[in-house]
């Protein structure tokens, strides 16, 4: 241990001059150099993370546009209302003078929706809203009206993407990890092969799979054709609104499953072999060992893997940008794709920032859930 006197003697001249003489010098030395060494990281962090992060919130409450002659104004929550407002509205059937429901072509006739949503003084709250979806309830029709159809589509797509991909990718990664967690020759070669897509750029992967998913002579259609002896007709995987998002999900799982496989493997290796031996002596079979030894030992890893996948999935962008540009019929719109489209391409940075803030809110809730689930139990 260094004494104060030694430290004082070793300190550079300018440190000795700069600091007052009371209090042990080695402590002041530590403080000075501590801050000095952390400074480059803290400076860049502040300028390029903390400030933009705070700016995102500030801008989202304004009507700022990138190139605009007018100064920005505070608009409160208007951007968020525009993005998120959803209303249910019930349409009652048209009735003739006797009060009977009017039918036409075998269906009930309803008043036109636009009578309510376009400048109708009796329904100011519906002004400017558009139909998102509707269904029949008795003789009435319930219509879900939203202000921003495309954003809501993007939000739903992203949530669907995340909630499908999390169990699927996490589960397959666990299966691969269990398969690889054996002492066999060449097992490392297989680990490297399963892992390879992770290091490859998502742009390359997206282009490659666009090629494979090609509607006419893509590899996938050709292979399905051969395996089914021609009975499966070619599918335009990315051009069909029903298959586009599932196709992107399948590709994304293929690309990143190796990443989570490695996390599972690390989790598996923390389980002591003695537990398996003890279970074996008690007569446990393979499934029982998994159920009562492996799975409980992987609890925190499971939460971690699911949360990491979910947070990554919320940022869905590259696949959409390279493969579908949000189409067909908005079937692959995503939140981040919309944020970039509006904030950057349409230069409406207020709306882009509001989308970023909504995204942060969702990610924050997910991360807090993880903290809650993995908290230390007493």
């Amino acid at each position: 241990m260094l004494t104060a006197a030694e430290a004082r003697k070793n300190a550079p001249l300018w440190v000795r001059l700069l600091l007052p003489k009371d209090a042990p010098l080695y402590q002041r030395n530590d403080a000075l150099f501590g801050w000095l060494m952390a400074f480059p990281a803290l400076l860049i962090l502040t300028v390029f993370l903390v400030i933009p992060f705070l700016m995102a919130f500030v801008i989202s409450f304004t009507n700022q546009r990138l190139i605009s002659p007018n100064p920005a104004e505070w608009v409160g929550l208007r951007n968020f209302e525009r993005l998120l407002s959803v209303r249910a509205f019930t349409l009652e059937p048209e009735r003739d003078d006797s009060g009977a429901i009017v039918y036409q072509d075998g269906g009930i006739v309803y008043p036109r929706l636009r009578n309510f949503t376009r400048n109708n003084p009796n329904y100011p709250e519906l002004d400017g809203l558009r139909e998102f979806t509707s269904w029949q309830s008795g003789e009435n029709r319930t219509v879900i009206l939203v202000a921003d159809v495309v954003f809501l589509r993007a939000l739903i797509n992203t949530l669907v993407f995340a909630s499908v991909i999390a169990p699927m990718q996490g589960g397959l990664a666990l299966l691969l990890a269990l398969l690889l967690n054996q002492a066999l020759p060449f097992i490392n070669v297989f680990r490297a092969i399963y892992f390879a897509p992770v290091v490859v750029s998502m742009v390359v992967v997206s282009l490659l799979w666009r090629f494979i998913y090609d509607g006419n002579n893509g590899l996938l259609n050709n292979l399905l054709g051969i395996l089914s002896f021609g009975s499966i007709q070619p599918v335009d995987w990315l051009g069909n609104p029903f298959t586009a998002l599932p196709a992107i999900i399948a590709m994304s799982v293929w690309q990143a499953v190796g990443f989570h496989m490695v996390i599972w493997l690390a989790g598996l290796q923390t389980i002591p072999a003695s537990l398996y031996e003890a279970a074996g002596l008690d007569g446990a079979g393979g499934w029982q060992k998994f159920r009562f030894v492996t799975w409980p030992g992987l609890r925190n890893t499971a939460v971690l893997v699911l949360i990491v996948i979910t947070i990554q999935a919320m940022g869905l962008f590259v696949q959409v940008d390279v493969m579908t540009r949000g189409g067909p019929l908005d079937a692959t719109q995503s939140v981040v794709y919309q944020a970039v489209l509006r904030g950057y391409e349409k230069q409406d940075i207020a709306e882009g920032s509001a989308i970023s803030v909504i995204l942060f809110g969702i990610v924050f809730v997910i991360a807090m859930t993880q903290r809650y689930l993995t908290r230390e139990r007493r």
Partner: protein
Amino acid sequence: MARATKTQGSLIGQRQVKILMDLFTYIVLAVVGIIFIMPFAWMVANSFKDIRGIYTYPPEFIPEVWHFENYTEAWTMTHFDAGFLNSAIVAAAVVLGQLFTASLAGYSFARLRYPGRDKIFLLYISLMMVPFTVLLIPLYVQMRYFNWISTLQAVIVPFLFTPWGTFMMRQFMVTIPRELEDAARIDGCGFFRTYWLIILPLTKPALATLAIFTFVNTWNSFQWPLIVLGKPKVKTLPLLLASFQNQSGMRTPWHLIMAAATFVVIPVLIAFVVGQKYYVRGIVTSGIKGGG
């Protein structure tokens, strides 16, 4: 005891069961392996075909005629030489910068005692939770303000820090015995020289992990460069590759795109093969990245 005799008495012994099980495992491993390898094999195979060859049925994994000229054609068509240089500059700068800031800050957080240190450290790593996509728009506004649009510093400077890497450095440095440092200090080394001569050489495995992880991420990075690098001469490889598909009007030149994709992948594959051990370790640590 009864169980043991039963197994020994059965027709196939435990040894044979084990061999059969292993064989089954290898078959499953191989089938899964094909699913992972086939798309890449398809990419490389088509990079050597001509435009008619890629649409043949049934699909050919070995081209009839090898068109090596696809590679030179793809290379010149999109100015990949400039792209390679840009990507290399950006990756090198970001890797070196992160190694420097993360190891310095990590040393400070691990070793030097000063008031408020642990609070700053906690704040620092809690920022790992902020997903980059949240910063996309405001950071773009900031880059315009700095006049950095379409310059390489826009994709370098904002990434010269890493909460995750700093965390890893700190955790690693905490395990280095303090006696080594004290000895150096008594011999007259200052803080910076102690860090440079004693700590850094001992931190090599963690530095290697951070370096390879950052290299792969930076080399592959697409979203942020797409927004700030508008001019063709500053574009990095993933941007050039993505713009390739929209370029030529008639038919998508898939054979050339596959050739271009192949040489974009080669540097990361080399990095991965060389440093697989460190890369995998990085992922295990990055579990913390999810916010923990």
